[in-house]
C-alpha cells in the first residue's frame, strides 16, 4: 500500500468502512467455519466480546448483541463491523484473529440468537 496509513484508526472515518464492506463481499465466497472452529468462535464471542458486550450479550460499554437488539441491523454491516471495527468507537477490528467467513458466521449467529457455549468448552 503506497498511501500512508491514517494517523489514527480511532479517528479515521473514510477508508475502513469501505475496506470492510469489500472484505465482507469477499467473505460470502469463502467456506463457513467448521465445527471445531465454530466452538472456538462461540467461546470467543461469549468470553472476549463479552468483556464489552456482556457474557449474555446484553451490552456494556458496547451495545447489546441479542437477537432483539439486532433485529433491524443489516447482516453485511454487522459482519463488516466485526471484521473491520467501527472507527470513532471502542469497537476494534478483529481481522487479526478472524477470517471474513468467521465474521460473517458470527454475525449470522448473533442475528439468529447466539448459541450457548458448548458444554465441554464451559
Amino acid at each position: 500500500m503506497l498511501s500512508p496509513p491514517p494517523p489514527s484508526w480511532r479517528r479515521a472515518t473514510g477508508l475502513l468502512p469501505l475496506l470492510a464492506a469489500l472484505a465482507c463481499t469477499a467473505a460470502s465466497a469463502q467456506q463457513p467455519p467448521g465445527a471445531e472452529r465454530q466452538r472456538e468462535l462461540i467461546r470467543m464471542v461469549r468470553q472476549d466480546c463479552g468483556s464489552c458486550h456482556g457474557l449474555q450479550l446484553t451490552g456494556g460499554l458496547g451495545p447489546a448483541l441479542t437477537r432483539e437488539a439486532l433485529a433491524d441491523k443489516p447482516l453485511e454491516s454487522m459482519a463488516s463491523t466485526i471484521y473491520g471495527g467501527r472507527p470513532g468507537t471502542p469497537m476494534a477490528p478483529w481481522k487479526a484473529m478472524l477470517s471474513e467467513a468467521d465474521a460473517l458466521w458470527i454475525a449470522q449467529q448473533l442475528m439468529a440468537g447466539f448459541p450457548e457455549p458448548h458444554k465441554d468448552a464451559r
Partner: protein
Amino acid sequence: MKRRDCLALLGASSLLLAGCASTGPAPSLVGTGDLGVVVARSTGTLAIVNTSQRKLLAEVKGLGDLSHASVVFSRDGRHAFVFGRDGALTKVDLLMQRIAGRVMQAGNSIGGAISADGRLVVAQNYTPGGIKAFNAETLELVADVPAEYEPGKLSRVVGLVDLPGQRFAYSLFDANAIWITDLSDPARPVTTKLPNIGRQPYDALVTPNGRHYIAGLFGEDGLAMVDLWEEKPQVRRILAGYGRGQEPLPVYKMPHLRGWAVAGRRAYLPAIGRHEVLVVDTDTWQEVGRIPVAGQPVFVMARPDGRQVWVNFSVPDYHRVQVIDTTTQKIVRTLEPGKAVLHMEFTPRGESVWISSRDDHRVSVIDTQSFATQATMTVDSPSGIFFTSRAARVGF
C-alpha cells in the same frame, strides 16, 4: 450440620458455639484478614479463598451475570459487595459463606466503591447511566444521581472511586466529563461537574493519598488529571500525545486503571493502542519513560511495596504476564501461568500474587520473589480476584 457450616457459624457468633462444639473438634474462631474471593464468571459463582492456606474454602452460587464483576469489602473484611453486569448488587458474608443481601439496582452495571467509613456502597451504572448509593448494612437505596449531561441524556459511568469526605469521583464516557458527588447528606447529593476533560474516558484511578484522580481517554492520546486538594478542582491533561502520531494498534479490551500502580514517586499506566507501559513522575506529571511490553496492557499493578509492577494483556497476548523492576524500569520476568489471564491480586504484603487463567480454569499462586508457583486451584472460568486487604485502601 456440616463441619464447614459449623466453623463459619463459629466465626460469626459465640452464641452458636455450644451447639457446634458438640458435633466437631474444638472450636476455632476465624478472622477475615486472609480471606478473599474469586469470581467464576460463567457460572455466577463466587469462590471464597484463604490466602494463608492458599485454598478454596467455599463457593457461593446465585450471583447472576458476573461478566466484568467487581468487588469491594466492608471495613471489617467480613462482607464482599459484588457488582454484577446484570445490575445486581450482592452482599456476600465471607464467614457464613452465603448471600447476606441482594438488590437488582440497575439494568447494566460495571462496578462500585465503598465510602471510607464503610456506610455507603455506591454502584456505577451503564443503564440507566449514573451512580446509586446504598446503605451498606441494609442495601436500602439512599441516593440516586443520574448522569444526565443533557436533558434526557444519561451517560455511561466509568472510573468510580471513593474519596475522603463521603465523596465519590467518576467519569462520564458519553459526556467527556468528570463528576465529583458529595454524599455527606445522601438525601441531598452535591455534584461538582468538570466538563471537556477529553474524549471518551474509559476508566480512572485515584492515587494512594486520595489526591489525584486520573481518567484514561480512549478517544485521544493522553489522560485527564484532577488535583482534588485544590479548592476548585480543575482538569489538566497529562501524557498528551503519547502516541506521537503513530497509528494505534487495535484495542481488543479496555485497560483497567482501578487499583493504582504507584511505586515511589512514579505511576505506571497502560498505553491505549500501544504495547507500552507509560511511566509518569507524580510530582511533575511529566512522562519519564515508557516500557515496551508483550501486548496491549490491561492491568498494570504495583506490588504493595512498589518494588515490582505486574502487567497482563488483552487477547491475543493474554497467556503472558510480565514483571517490571521499578528500580531499573526493565522487565525482569515473563511468565506464562495459563490461557487467558484476566486478573492478578497481591496478598496484603505482596509476597505472593494470585493470577486467574480463564481458559485453563485455574488460579495460580506465585511467589513474587522467586516466581515459583506455590499453589494452583481449579475454578470455573475465573476472572476477578479480590482480597479483603482492599478494605483498607483508598480507591480499591
